[in-house]
């Protein structure tokens, strides 16, 4: 399912809302989530999961072309931990066999 398919489904089910409001809402939710993570803020959605940043320490990598060692700075990477309800539903889902 893509973002545009998600917008279609929501617009069909939330028939009291104009399509453009659903579209704008979905885009805004995704932007707000990306914005939160990019300022180091966690996201916590009960029954869905939480998003946070995990620190990746600096390491020595190699330039694959020249074989030269390069020091790569430490960085933060987004991490998702599924919530209990999502974990259970995904594991018990109808397609899971």
């Amino acid at each position, binding site marked *: *399912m893509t973002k545009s398919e998600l917008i279609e489904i929501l617009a069909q089910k939330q028939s009291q809302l104009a399509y453009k409001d659903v579209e704008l809402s979905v885009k805004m939710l995704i932007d*707000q989530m990306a914005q939160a993570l990019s300022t180091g803020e966690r996201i916590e959605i009960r029954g869905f999961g939480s998003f946070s940043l995990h620190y990746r320490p600096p390491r020595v990598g190699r330039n694959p072309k020249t074989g030269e060692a390069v020091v790569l700075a430490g960085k933060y990477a987004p991490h998702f931990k599924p919530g209990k309800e999502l974990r259970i539903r995904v594991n018990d889902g109808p397609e899971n066999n």
Partner: protein
Amino acid sequence: MALTKADMAEKLFQEVGLNKREAKEIVEAFFEEIRLALENGQSVKLSGFGNFDLRKKNQRPGRNPKTGEEIPISSRRVVTFRAGQKLKAKVEIYAGSREQQ
């Protein structure tokens, strides 16, 4: 403070002009549709954010950490999240600003 559904509904109320009930409903429905797709074996790709993929894990040996008793961990299906390029880039800017502090 963590971002919550209440914060998200508040933003839709303020900026899209939905009423409070509509805003709350669409935030709830947004997460519910993602859960439904995943539950039905469909991965979810949100451009500008990332992909939720499904992985099948085989049964593996486990142990009860309290008693030390060996018990198999049954095979299961799990969700993994892979951040997209755009989100990774945004988050790295934060890492950069932290290093200067």
